[in-house]
């Protein structure tokens, strides 16, 4: 018996609007990112010989992908779900795409990615994205059925220069009773 609701399939091909990251590339955020992953490469700090090639201090290759946060004045999901014991705190909106409503009750896990890098974002630059749902399929595994949701996203500077292109898989797993 399929665990993939028919209604979920209508999301394939749905595109996002262009979304602009709430903040530009912040020096402090680049530092926190560097220290969290344990890569304090001087190219991330400030202008130096090593980052002249990039036009000055830059952010990590994956940094633009993580810049799309909750904006001021939008609903706070942590607060809104504080009384719900089943609320898992997972990020519900990725890449400006709508949540796939028929799958919201299923826990989500990161299933992997393909990514191409073209340039690094510089400190102070604005980043925007455009995304679409590429496929939604069911797969049988040794631990039961899972649903694979694949999205494709272009990350660009505010001027439209391509930074990275990502094809991302999220796993939705029916909860065992």
């Amino acid at each position, binding site marked *: 018996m399929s665990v993939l609701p028919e209604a979920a399939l209508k999301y394939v091909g749905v595109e996002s609007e262009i979304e602009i990251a709430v903040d530009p590339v912040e020096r402090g*955020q680049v530092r*926190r*990112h560097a*220290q*969290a*992953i*344990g*890569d304090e*490469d001087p190219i991330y700090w400030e202008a130096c*010989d*090593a980052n*002249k*090639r*990039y036009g000055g201090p830059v952010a*990590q*290759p*994956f940094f633009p992908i*993580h810049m799309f*946060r*909750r904006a001021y004045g939008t609903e706070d999901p*942590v607060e809104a779900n504080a009384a719900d*014991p*089943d609320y*898992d*705190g*997972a*990020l519900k909106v990725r890449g400006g795409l709508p949540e796939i409503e028929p799958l919201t009750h299923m*826990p989500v*896990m*990161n*299933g*992997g*990615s*393909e*990514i*191409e*890098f*073209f*340039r690094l974002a510089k400190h102070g630059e604005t980043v925007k994205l455009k995304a679409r749902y590429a496929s939604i399929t069911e797969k049988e595994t040794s631990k039961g059925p899972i649903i694979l949701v694949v999205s494709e996203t272009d990350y660009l500077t505010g001027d439209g*220069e*391509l930074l990275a292109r990502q094809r991302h*898989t999220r796993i939705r797993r029916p*909860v*065992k009773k």
Partner: protein
Amino acid sequence: MTIDTSKQLYFEDVSVGMELPKLTKGPMTTAHIMRWSATMENWHKIHYDTPFAINHDKLPGVLLNGSFKQQWLAQLLKDWVGLNGWVWKMNYQFRAMNLVGETLTIWGKVTALHKGPDFGVVELDIGIVNQEGKESTPGKASVAVPYKGGKPVPYPFVPPKL
């Protein structure tokens, strides 16, 4: 532009089967995971709420974020290709969970070489194994590397036709 050429990789120095210098992370603690999750503003409870992870999501404990592990694959490749190279593309799957207490080794091995007119492209297998040798994040990557005496790989990067 002053380049530390002692750390620059050149295509002529790469061969199929070559293993990259390994990158080690850990032993991983809840502090590592919390620091990364806070940096990402990721409040997913499976990364810090042990009772929720075990009782609600039926997991063995809190998990290292997949987004955390992908950073290390990029770090491994960036450090290897040097300033005049470029990490072009990579793919990976999160096939196994990694938990608190594990020490992770990020690895890469050259699988193929392609000579282009202005720079070379190196294909690799990449991944992350824990202290027991269990692979969690297998993948593949392609990096662009300059020739000795040649120009740096173009930046912004323009993918070659292989």
